[in-house]
């Protein structure tokens, strides 16, 4: 039993550690091997393999599901960096399939159509690490309790509008500061109020941070957006539609990688933003129907 416990504890650490290796990096959505190679050469730390980027999922409608393993395998073959892929919220069989093809990270994602309207996947049952979206501290800690090894803001994917990602990152930071300022006897009530397990709230109070890496995602379209999220405290950035929906994906991908590495240096940010061509078009989140908001999926 001790050996088995050790093994599970090691796996949990190794999975969190891989996310730590990705810090300061950019993870890019790609839909085929050719895009994956462009992303790798531009300096992406990982790619997210999916059939349609969020902007197209939004446009096409219908049910969005896990990608074809054949397409994912082609991308795994094409690049040496980690390959991630998405499963529907609650769809643990899609996750089993991705584990069987040795995907490096599974994103249980609100961008796809949820498969379960009550429960997220029990991620502790998997050896493969999971990343999950969160809008606030309670949601992040619920996902971590279920076994997520990495958190990202939900933002509002496929809009090219960073406002929701900013909102979620700020909320998380504010709540972490709140927890850190509480007396120990106040933590149980706070945990109940945000719907999070007490042991994880205690961890946050003690360490003033989440127990896992926290990336920004959902609406990042420019080098300035990426650097904004880093300055707000993100450990790294996911860029979905923002790269391959822009006029010049290669240059934009390189520019965003540089902006994340040198996020605190305005002169470099100016240089990399210079003459990039048109960004993805983008959507005003305010004018969207509630039903069109992907961030509302998950609980």
């Amino acid at each position, binding site marked *: 039993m001790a050996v088995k416990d050790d093994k599970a504890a090691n796996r949990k*650490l190794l999975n969190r550690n891989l996310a730590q*290796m990705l*810090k300061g990096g950019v993870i890019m959505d790609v839909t085929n091997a050719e895009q994956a190679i462009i992303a790798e050469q531009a300096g*992406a*730390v990982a790619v997210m393999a999916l059939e349609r980027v969020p902007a197209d999922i939004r446009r096409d409608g219908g049910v969005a599901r896990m990608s074809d393993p054949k397409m994912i395998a082609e991308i795994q073959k094409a690049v040496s960096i*980690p390959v991630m892929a998405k499963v529907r919220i609650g769809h643990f069989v899609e996750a089993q399939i991705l584990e069987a093809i*040795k995907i*490096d990270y599974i994103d249980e994602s609100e961008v796809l159509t949820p498969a379960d309207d009550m429960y997220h996947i029990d991620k502790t049952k998997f050896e493969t690490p999971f990343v999950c979206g969160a809008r606030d501290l309670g949601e992040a800690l619920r996902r971590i309790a279920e076994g997520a090894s990495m958190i990202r803001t939900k933002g509002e994917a496929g809009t090219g509008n960073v406002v929701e990602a900013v909102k979620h990152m700020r909320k998380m930071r504010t709540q972490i500061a709140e927890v850190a300022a509480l007396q120990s006897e106040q933590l149980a009530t706070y945990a109940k109020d945000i719907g999070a397990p007490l042991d994880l709230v205690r961890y946050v109070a003690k360490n003033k941070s989440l127990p896992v890496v926290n990336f920004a995602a959902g609406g990042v379209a420019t080098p300035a957006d990426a650097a904004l999220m880093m300055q707000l405290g993100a450990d790294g950035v996911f860029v979905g539609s923002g790269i391959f929906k822009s006029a010049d994906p290669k240059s934009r991908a*390189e520019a965003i990688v540089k902006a994340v*590495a040198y996020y605190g240096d305005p002169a470099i940010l100016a240089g990399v933003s210079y003459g990039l061509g048109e960004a993805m078009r983008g959507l005003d989140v305010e004018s969207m129907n509630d039903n069109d908001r992907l961030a509302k999926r998950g609980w």
Partner: protein
Amino acid sequence: MNIGVLALQGSVAEHLKMISSVNKKIGAIPVRTIDELASVDGLIIPGGESTTLRRLLDSFKLYTPIKERIMAGMPVWGTCAGLILLANRVEGETPYLSLLDVDVKRNAYGRQIDSFVGEGDFDNMYINMVFIRAPKITRVGDDVTVLAEYDGTPVAVRQDNIMATSFHPEMTRDNRVHKYFLSMCGKE
């Protein structure tokens, strides 16, 4: 003494914290610029993605200054991605700094599901070794000392002022490998 950690991407904060844990008087400096590089007495190239680090080192013209400092004797330690950047030969790729006489194969232990924690001797200390999508050292040159092996394969090596590990001591709570590197820096 100031020890730098190349701070373009990867396990930077973890290394900085480890350096401070060995000795609070040692400056732990994130290195992103030529000026910052000039201010340090030793450099750690952290874990991360070697393709990303190469790209950024080239773009921000850090390749030559780093290579010159190492050739002039500055102690350097590469963990995982750092090992790949230092190696003389990388299977299937153009080598980068080519300063350490070893051959490496990227991701040779497999994908993330194959990542593991091992244990073994490092310079007569028994330590845990965290391997994450780790590169494998497939050949060691005559001037290279093997500091640690795992499963019969070298996983920590040293050639004069250059040290490299395919595992990640910065991911443990044990700072003895960092102490070893700092003692290399003290002798400069």
